[in-house]
Each structure stands twice: as structure tokens, then as C-alpha cells.
């Protein structure tokens, strides 16, 4: 009765299909889970990137504002006003204090402001206890052509 022992065709088809369906569902579920995980991770990264972007933009804006504030403080008017507030007056050096007129033999003429000023400066520097020849004021700290009066 071999024919009777054969499994009915409809049962085998259903069983096969069920396996396939289960496999499809499992795969779909796995894909969905993976997608969800990837999406979640992506969202998290996106949020982090956006936050960093916002932070960068905020810091750049802050830098721009601060530099503008600093640059506005450096203008000639503001410097002049700040000096006046502190009782200082700055002017460009008078050429008369910079020009040394020499005789034919190389000696300077007497009574020149430039010579007197240089001598005074030498005396002041020599009298200063902290004076070291190598420790002269930096040329950058005070513009060479500006002197305090």
C-alpha cells in the first residue's frame, strides 16, 4: 500500500510554503531590526553632528563678535581717548629731535635738540638700575616714530 503511505500533496505544499514564509518573515524581521538599529544610530550621529555644527557656528559667531569688539577698541579715536583718560598725550616725533647736523669734521653742531635728547636718554638709561644693554624696550611695544610727551 505504498500509494496510501504517500503524503498528500496539499500537506507537503503547505509545509514547504510555511517554511519559506517563515524564512521570509524572519529575514524581513531581521532586516527591520537592522534597519531600525542603523536608523537609530544614524539619527544619533546626525543629532551629534548637528549639535557640533551649531556649536561651531555659535563659536564662530562669538569669535567674530569678539574680534569686532577688539578691533573697534583699537581705532585711532579710541586709542586717543584712552590715552587722554589716563593723562597721556602721544605725538609723532618731531624731526628736529631726529636730525643731527654735523660739521665737516664729523662733530655735531652744538645746541641741537636731537643731540641733547640723545644725551638725556643715555643718562636716564645709565642711571636706571634695571638697565641692561640687551634689555632695551622692544621696537614692537612702542612704535619707533611715536614718543610720549
Amino acid at each position: 500500500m505504498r500509494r496510501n503511505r504517500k503524503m498528500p500533496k496539499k500537506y507537503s505544499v503547505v509545509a514547504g510554503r510555511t517554511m519559506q514564509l517563515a524564512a521570509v518573515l524572519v529575514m524581513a524581521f531581521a532586516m527591520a531590526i537592522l534597519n531600525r538599529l542603523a536608523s537609530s544610530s544614524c539619527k544619533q550621529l546626525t543629532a551629534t553632528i548637528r549639535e557640533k555644527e551649531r556649536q561651531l557656528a555659535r563659536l564662530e559667531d562669538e569669535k567674530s563678535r569678539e574680534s569686532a569688539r577688539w578691533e573697534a577698541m583699537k581705532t585711532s579715536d579710541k586709542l586717543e581717548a584712552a590715552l587722554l583718560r589716563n593723562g597721556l598725550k602721544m605725538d609723532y616725533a618731531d624731526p628736529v629731535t631726529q636730525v643731527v647736523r654735523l660739521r665737516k669734521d664729523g662733530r655735531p653742531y652744538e645746541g641741537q635738540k636731537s643731540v641733547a635728547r640723545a644725551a638725556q636718554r643715555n643718562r636716564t638709561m645709565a642711571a636706571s638700575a634695571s638697565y641692561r644693554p640687551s634689555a632695551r624696550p622692544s621696537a614692537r611695544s612702542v612704535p619707533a616714530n611715536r614718543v610720549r610727551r
Partner: protein
Amino acid sequence: MPMRGESLRFWVPVVLLVLFAAFVSQKLIRAHVDPDVGAIDYGFTRDLPGCRGSVYGSFGKAYPLAKSVPVWEYRLDPVALTNRVAKPKGAPPRTREQIVRTIAGALKIDYGKVLAMAHDSRRRYQFLAVSSDPMAHDILSDSHFVVGVVIVDRQVRQYLHGRRLSHVLGSVNAENMGSAGIEQRFNRDLTGVPGRIRGLKDAHGHEIYDRRIEEIAPIPGADVYLTVDHNVQFEAESALKWGVEEFGAGSGWCIVMDAATGAVLAMASLPDFDPHAFGRATDDARVNRAIAFNYEPGSVMKVITAAAALDTGRVRPETRYSTARNDDRYYRLPSDGSHVWEPTMTVADAVVHSSNIVIGKLGYDLGPKCLWTYMTRFGFGQQTGIELPGEQYGILPDWKKWDKVKWSRAPIGQGVSVTAIQLCSAYQAIANDGLRMKPYIVDRVVNHDGRELYRHVPTPAGRPVSEATARALRNVMVGVASPAGTARRAAIRGYSVAGKTGTAQKVVDGRYSDSLYRATFCGIVPASAPKLVVLVSLDFDERTKYHQGGNSSAPVFRRLATAVLRYMMIPPDRPDDFADDEEDDADAPERSVRD
């Protein structure tokens, strides 16, 4: 057919599921590929404004003159202030008055004013203030503490030196578009390219950040570098302001130009305006008189006549002319304003003493065509091409249209109109041994990645006179700033000054006024090796004692040129002047010198 039924029961849902999945996935794929599909319902587009480029002086990035700064604009929404509740953690809800007091304190506005705005619920989003204070922003953006304040990110144009150089820099309007000066002329370069964001919003209207379809970053505008030195500009404006106040002038203008290249180191015009409030400035204050104002130059034009006469070889500096006005060979000679009277006068003395009669005769002898040709060669009657909007041409009619009156008056600077920049450019030619350079104020334009879009190379604009003529003329002009000349108050100890004064009568109701003048002095320093050309003009709206060029503009020139020479460390060409070592003070008004 049971088998077919079972099969159908399985395959139909599967096929439908697949079709649905295909449809959804296709929609999603298309949404990514074609942004229009995604943008049907929840799409949005937002423009990102490009940061406007900066304007720098000759010192470069260390000292910007104009730059855009991000700020916050605060607006008050009375409806939101009423409807929403501000409740700090662990504290009772804040009252409207408390919130208003916080807003007023943070933005430093009057409390009563903000309270009145808060009560006016018919007007939503009322302007409160623009501020760059981060502390105020932190306070007002905390929704647990303050409600009803709308914050808008904005960029405002800051002119860091305030009113200084306002006519050159110009201004921008509410849309951040240049409306005057460099801002207007270089608006396209400064503006840059705006960026754009296209993406999706959720049902609440919030942007879904991972659904951005398109994101184009804005390209910042290019930076414009001027030839203007802000320290020279400071000295120029300070000296001009002093001159206008000291001598009672209604307005004034001055230019400091590099003698070798034609680069403008400073340009000032009074009255000026606040570039942050350009809309509130009067029409009068908006005019850059250094380039956009035609005026009769007066005696400063005599140098051009003398240059033409010397260059043609008709005369030499020592050639003598009679100072008699009643000469039949000449038509209606102008009366002589010279303060020195001699029966005859050399051409050099005519320039030094500003003799109308002798220079008038010189011009008459040259003829209108020759005179007009030389004036044109010196750049009069045409734009100089400086990179500023609104430059005038001056008024120099064709010589064929000159009648005999104009023929006799044009040599002394009447009947023709010039701009200050033209005059300065003409004197620059004399300073530069006869070679006139095109005046310029923009050195270069550099885009955001450091590439130069434009760089000005000093360009010759012609040689109106020979080198020998220019040198001879400079030697003659040195006498003007000598004790014998009309501008002794322009003399600078240690430096030789070559210049010329001009006192032009203003035209009132079609007639020359006897009481209103424009006083000009244009000088070249040091005359032996010219470095600077400085022009100063003062415009008098009322009769004053010091309306002459030698009495008003010359001291301003002296004050300005002295500071600039020291600042630029230009060595004195007359060190022997220091031998007497006496302090000089020639700024104080002294005897009237007729021009």
C-alpha cells in the same frame, strides 16, 4: 481545485505585500533622487545668506574698516507673553511684569517702554533691540525664564571707525545691499553667494535633520582692501575738522595722495554722516565733495596755465610781463588780486604772488585751443576713474565754444569747474615729474579662499608736461609757501613745500559773490623729492575774515602734512631749518594775505 485555492491564499497577500513594499521603496528612493517628490507635502527651502565681505585699509586684516558681525534681533510678541507660562524649576510661574523687567534689564531698554509694548496685544513681533551681548541672549533664550521674545539671527554691518571715512566706505541698506561708496561700487563682490537648504519637516513643522535633500553652504563675500591708511585718515579728518571750526567754514574736503603712484592715502569730506544711520543723513552730508562736487578752482588753476606756457616753450620762469591791466592786445583782463604790485613781473613771481593779470595774459597768449588741450591732458573735464560711485566730470566746455571772456578767465580758474580729485591728480603729475597716474583707492579684492579677483597696478594716465617743465614748475611753486608767497602759513619747518593757493568766488544767483568764497590749497611735499600731494578746500557759507586760501586752507594743509610726514617718517629735505631751533607756531590766524 483545493490546491489552487491554498496557493492563491498564500501568494495573493505575498504579491500584494511585495507590490506595497515596491511602491513604498520606490517613493522613498524617488524622494532621495528627486527632491521635488519629497517636497510635496513636508518639504521646505531655506536660504542661507552669505556673510558680506569686509573692507580693510592699507594695514590689512589687523584693522578692518567695515565688517559684518552676527547679532541677535529681539522682537516682543505680546500674545505669546500672555498665553505662555514661564516657570523656572522649583519656583512659581513668573508674572508678566517680572518677565518684562528681565527683558528691559537684559537689553538695557526702558522698563516702561517694554511694558507698554507688552500691553499692546494688537501688534505682534514689535521690535525691541539688536544686540550682540551673549549674556542677554542666554537670558532671553531661556524659555523657562522668559516667554514672548522672538530671537532672529542677523548680520549687521559695523563700521569700526564710526564716522571716519564714511563717504568712501558708504553704507548698506536694510537688505544688506550697498547703497553708497565702496559698499555700493563693490556690492557684487562683497555680497558673496547665498547658500540653500532643502529638506523635510515633520508633522509639527520641525526640520527632520536626517532628511535633508540638499545643503549648499553659502560662499562668503570677497574682501576689499583700500589704499587708505587709517592713521593718515585720522590726521586728515582731525585737521579738516579743526580747519572748518577754526575758520568758520560751512564745509570742507581734503585728499592725501601718494605722489608716485596716485594712491589715495586719505579722503575726507565734511559734513559727514554716520554710516550706521545712512538713512537719517541729510542729502548735503551724503555728498562726497572730494569726487562728486564741481566747483570753480580759482587760482590753483594758474599752475596749469603756467605749466602749459612753460611746456610749450613760449616763456621761461624768468620771462617778464607787464602788470598793466589796460592792454589793447588782451580782452577784458581780470582785476589783480595780487598783494604785491610791481610794474613788471616774471612768470615765476606771477605764480608766487598769484597775479591774475599776468596769468591772464599768459593764457590769452597761449590761445584757447592750447589751454584747453593742456587742461584736458591734466585730466580736467573727464572722470579720473577712481573706484567710487558718483564721480563728477567737472565742467570744461570744448575750446570752440569759448568766448573771449572765458578765454581770459579760464587761465585763472574761473568759468571752468573741477573736482578735488581732478585737481589733486593734476598736481600729482607735477609732483611725479610730469607723469600723471590714474588715481585709485582700491588696492585689491580678495575672495574667501585668498584668490585675488582684482589688483590695481599703478597705471599712467598720460604725460601732460615734460619732466623739465614739471621740475621747473615745482621750483616756482616752492616760492608760494615762502615768506614772500601767498601761502607762507603752509610752510613746514625742515621740508620744502611746493603748492598754490586758490580763493574762488562762489556764484550766487548767477553772479560772483563778493563775500562767499571757496579757499583751496594744494601742495606737494617734500618739493625736492615729492612723496605726498595734499589738497585742502574750505567752503565758506558766510563772510569771514579768513576766507583766503593762504589764510585758512594753508594752515590746515600745514597741520595735516606735518603729521603725515612725521608718521610716514619722511626725512626732512631742509635740515638746515632746524639750525635756529626755534619753535614755530603758525596755526594762529595772522594778517590777511590777499590771493
